Each structure stands twice: as structure tokens, then as C-alpha cells.
């Protein structure tokens, strides 16, 4: 850390004196450190490595355009750290709502968050189903909701396979009518 501070500061001072190659060497060394820092910080809040690269570039630009601010009598590492921290908080504030690259875990989280919506529609369907005749309801529940085959459904319900088929067919038609009626009732309201 101390050796690094001495080296980085020497490069910075040389760059301030107009040495372009020292400045490039400085930015290259800083980019490695900054990338590691941002990846680490972003991982903690579940954001991806693409953003770390953007932030690294933004911070390098900030260091370059504010190099006249650096006080040669001060330590260099805290100066860079303060800029990196500022760029990070500014970036997070800017991108609060947008999600740029999601990890798989996050996608799954998002999907599971949407589950309550699915539950609602299911409850709706359940309410409609209660308005169907028992035979139709039972056939639809077994075939369409639980995903059984016609033969399995027949075995489970004690109906003949052809009766199951007919019940499902009629039941779906009846449901469609119910849904339509419900929809127009909504519009009337």
C-alpha cells in the first residue's frame, strides 16, 4: 500500500509536469485497481460487471479532467479513492430505476416477485370455475390446471375418457362465455 502510494504519486506528479507516458502508465495501473473496487462494490448490491467497466472509465475520465485539482503536497491514494466513491454514489443515484445487466439470480428474483400477479388470475379463474357444472369443472381442473392426460383424468375422476374430452371442451366454451360476460360487465361499470 505504502509502496504503491509512492509509485502512483510519482507517476501523477510526473504527469502533472507534462509527462504523457507517465500519465498513461498511471491511468493503466489505476484502471486495474478501480475495476476491482467497483466490481466488489457492485457485487455487494447485486449489480453486474458491465457496470463496473463503465464506472472505471467514468472515473478515469474524472481523474484526467480534474488532475489540476490534485494538491501536490497531499497523499494521492485518498484523492483517487474519494473520486471513485463519488463516481459510484453518483452512478447509483443516476441508475436507481434502470437495470442494465442482471445476474441470473436477480432474474429469478424478479420472476418470483411477479408471482402474486399469477395467483390473482388463478383466483379469478377459480371463481369462474365454481359457476360451471361439477363435471365440467372437475375435467378442466384435472386436464387444464393440473396438466393430466385425458386417460389419467378419466382414471382420477371415474369418468370415461370421451366424457372427459367432451366436458373439457364444453367447459372451456362455457368459461369463455363467462369471461366475456364479466368483461362487458366491467365496461358497463
Amino acid at each position, binding site marked *: 500500500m505504502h509502496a504503491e502510494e509512492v509509485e502512483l504519486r510519482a507517476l501523477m506528479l510526473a*504527469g502533472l*509536469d507534462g509527462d504523457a507516458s507517465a500519465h498513461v502508465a498511471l491511468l*493503466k495501473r489505476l484502471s486495474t485497481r478501480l475495476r476491482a473496487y467497483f466490481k466488489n462494490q457492485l457485487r455487494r448490491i447485486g449489480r453486474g460487471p458491465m457496470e463496473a467497466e463503465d464506472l472505471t*472509465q467514468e472515473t478515469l475520465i474524472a481523474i484526467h479532467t480534474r488532475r489540476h485539482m490534485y*494538491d501536490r503536497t*497531499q497523499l494521492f491514494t485518498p484523492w483517487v479513492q474519494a473520486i471513485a466513491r463519488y463516481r459510484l454514489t453518483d452512478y447509483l443515484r443516476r441508475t436507481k430505476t434502470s437495470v442494465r445487466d442482471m445476474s441470473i439470480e436477480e432474474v429469478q428474483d424478479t420472476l418470483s416477485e411477479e408471482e402474486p400477479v399469477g395467483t390473482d388470475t388463478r383466483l379469478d379463474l377459480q371463481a369462474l370455475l365454481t359457476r360451471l357444472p361439477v363435471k365440467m369443472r372437475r375435467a378442466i381442473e384435472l386436464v387444464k390446471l393440473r396438466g393430466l392426460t385425458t386417460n389419467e383424468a378419466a382414471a382420477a375422476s371415474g369418468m370415461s375418457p370421451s366424457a372427459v374430452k367432451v366436458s373439457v371442451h364444453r367447459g372451456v366454451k362455457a368459461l369463455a362465455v363467462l369471461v366475456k360476460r364479466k368483461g362487458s360487465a366491467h365496461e358497463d361499470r
Partner: protein
Amino acid sequence: MKTDELIEALGSTVERVEGRPFRNAFIIALVVGAALAVCAMQAVLGMSASALRESHFGVMILTVVFVVGVVAAGSSYLLKAANPGMPADAPMTLLVLLVVGFLCAGAAALLAVHPAARSAMIFGPPWTVCLACIPLFAIGPFIALVWILRKGAPTSLRSTGAVAGLVAGAVGAGACALHQPVGSLPFLGVWYAGPILLCALLGAVLGPRVLRW
């Protein structure tokens, strides 16, 4: 753009940095801001010779001390705050002491006189002028300070904005004092310090938005 390409591109525009360019630019911005405040005062109120004649000499000195003190301590803070990783506790403490000290002095002067005279001390001269004009005159210096601070690298935008507002308010108060005689210390404590603190509050509110870089 790849990061390495970016670095090469940045490396092609390396210039020698000499002296303390930011400090010089800051002083220029402050002077421009003060000039704007005086111009605004001249346009709105007009300078009056009576301001200097009628002002109580001791109170006038105190006004100058307060304005110059806040501007000096505030500038010292802002120069540090605009530079990342630089501790700015000392000028901030000085600034708080200055403002609190002034408010206390005003309160003490108020308590020292007979209760019947208190209202006259506070509401004597047209105080609404100070209340309205100090924030108005502070707009110019505030814009100048924000402009220069954005060229720096402030990292705590709220406190930087608050102090920028405070300094701008003090400059505005200085301009206001050129028009209107400052009657008494409590008057100074209430109708000068109050609007100046209001400017600081506005600066704190605006800071995070206008100072982003």
C-alpha cells in the same frame, strides 16, 4: 470503447499543470460574484451616502468583520471541499463559530437594553429590505460559485452547496449594507444573519442538483 483505448486517448491530451489554477479561478469567480451583487444592489436600491454616515461606527465595523469573516472562512472551506479527500473540518468549525457567535452577540445586545427599546432596535430601519434583498443579491455570487465549484471536484454536494449559499448570502448582505444603514447589533443579528442562513439553506437544497459533475 475499450478502457485501454480510452486511456490512450486521454494520454494524448496531457498538459503541464502549473501553480494552483483552481484557487486563482475561485478568487476570480468570487470577485465577479461580488461585482454582480453590487450591480444588483445599485439597480434595485441605489447606493446611498447616508448608509455610511448614519451607521453606527462600531456596528459597521462588526458588519464588515462578519461579512469578511464568513466569506474568508467559507472560501477556505469551499477550496478544500472542491478537492477530493481533503479534510475541511477546521474552516467549517470556524464558520459555525462565526455565525453562532454573531447570533449570540445580537441576542446579548438585545437583552442588555430596556425591553421597551428592543422592538425599536429590531424593527427600526426598514427590515423588509434586508429580508428580500440579501437573497436577491446573493443570486449572482451563488451562480458564480456554483460555476467554479463544478470545475472542481466537490464530493459532499449538500454541505458544499450550503456553504456556497452562506458565502453568497454574506456577499449579498455586504452589498445590502452599502445601501442601508445598519442600526444596531440585534438588527444585524436578526435581519442580516437570518437571510444569510436562509441562503445557506437554499444552497443545501440546491447543492446536490446543481453541483453534480
